[in-house]
């Protein structure tokens, strides 16, 4: 029996639509589920007090601080390196074998799983450089991990700046560096900030690499050599050791909201950026 093409189309589209719906539904379900179970736990005291009894009670304040400091440190390192790389690729050279090598290296770096970063950080920063399990080791390791993201988004942002601006600046006797500093970078800023948000989001979500390098100490860090615990790590420990499902959900809720907020801001900035360009 030959099915007429029209009917095949209806069936096919139905299946495809169903698949899409399923995908979106599952992903939404996860967020709703966690928020539903976790938000009731998130009270002001939960956010501002220290964990007690290994996390069975109390709050997650020092952990929030740890979660803020770690991406801050990583970005402080990854941002100059990443933007600098993008500036070189976009402004100072044309496509040569060298740029292909640099891009290849960046793509490879992007594909390395976080556990390998954890192993590397452990043996290099924690061990060989004697930094121990610390904010520093974690920050440096995560910096390398988000470097490809920063490079990619920065390069895109730089390329979006109209070539005409560079020509005008050059024709007035600006050196390349002056053109980059005064015209290109300020215009690429929103795109670069998007990369920062995405990179920060990755740092916050990361668990394996953080445990291996920043440790799991859940108290307030007083120096860069102190170990810290991030929300993702805390959540993992609570959940896996069966310490407190309730607090686990609470931590997860805060974690998800933070990540969603970062990503939403990144997308909103990207759209504002594109809209401005189109004018």
């Amino acid at each position, binding site marked *: 029996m030959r099915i007429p093409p029209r009917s095949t189309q209806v069936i096919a589209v139905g299946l495809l639509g169903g698949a899409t719906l399923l995908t979106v539904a599952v992903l939404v379900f996860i967020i709703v589920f966690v928020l539903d179970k976790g938000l009731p736990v998130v009270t002001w005291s939960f956010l501002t007090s220290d964990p007690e009894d290994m996390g069975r009670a109390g709050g997650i304040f020092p952990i929030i601080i740890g979660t803020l400091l770690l991406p801050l440190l990583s970005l402080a390192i990854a941002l100059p390196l990443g933007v600098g790389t993008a500036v070189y690729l976009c402004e100072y050279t044309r496509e040569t074998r060298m740029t292909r090598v640099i891009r290849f290296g960046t793509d490879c770096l992007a594909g390395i799983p976080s556990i390998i970063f954890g192993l590397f950080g452990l043996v290099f920063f924690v061990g060989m450089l004697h930094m121990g399990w610390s904010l520093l080791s974690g920050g440096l390791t995560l910096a390398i991990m988000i470097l490809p993201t920063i490079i990619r988004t920065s390069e895109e942002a730089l390329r979006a700046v109209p070539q005409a601006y560079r020509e*005008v600046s050059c*024709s*007035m006797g600006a050196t390349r560096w002056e053109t980059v500093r005064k015209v290109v970078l300020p215009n690429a800023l929103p795109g670069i900030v998007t990369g920062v948000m995405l990179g920060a989001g990755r740092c916050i979500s990361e668990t394996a690499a953080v445990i291996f390098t920043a440790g799991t100490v859940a108290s307030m860090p007083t120096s860069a050599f102190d170990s810290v615990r991030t929300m993702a790590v805390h959540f993992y420990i609570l959940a896996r050791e069966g310490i407190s499902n309730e607090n686990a959900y609470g931590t997860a809720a805060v974690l998800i909201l933070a990540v969603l907020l970062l990503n939403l801001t990144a997308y909103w900035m990207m759209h504002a950026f594109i809209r401005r360009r189109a004018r």
Partner: protein
Amino acid sequence: MNSLVKIAARGFSVFFSGNLALRSITLEIHRNAILGIIGPSGSGKTSFLRAINRLNDLHPDSHIEGVLQLDGEDIYHPRFDPVALRKRVGMVFALPIPLPLSIYENVVYGPRLGGHPPPRAELDELVEHSLRAAFLWDEVKDRLHTSGLRLSGGQQQRLCLARVLAMQAEVILLDEPCSGLDPISTAKIEEALTALKSQHTIVLVTNNTKQAARVADKTAFFLMGELVEHGPTRQIFTVPNDKRTNDYVTGRFG
């Protein structure tokens, strides 16, 4: 060295990625005069213009042969600084390109380059002077700190001219500056150029032969990368030496 000559080209050729864009141009451009460059699209007019301020260097694969001199100095000499050159030779592009800054910031962009920016009072004076010379001051004097992007097309182009003037460039290059503008804006710019030539050397590339006839003291006709003929504007337009020139200015082809 003839003190009348500001820019001199001798056997000057330009190649892009191995293709010949300009063939052996020999031409003298006199100071304090307007040279109009006419010719159909693709004849190398823009390439020649961009060679004068070495903007062709931005092209990833270009090289030149021959000599191009400014005040007797070879500007393509390895030790000649292109950045310094561009402070003496300014350019107005075909599409008005204000930088995404305020009007004030646009005009002072050039003078602020180079690590020793002049003091604020001097800059203010420079801004007024340049905007007046570009016939734009009266229209924008109350909104110097609004964005340059908000001006009309004609105003933006005059802003670009003011930008070049603020650099106190000796030479002003204009690449079809009025191509997108209405007749009134065009007239304002032509008026400005005529007033400016007493202090500057002006090279004006234009697709509009009538504009060259109105404004240029001397005219050069480029065709397919070659300089066919050049001379006083009146002569080029009435009794040219070359048949091709005659065909072009009478509109037989374009």
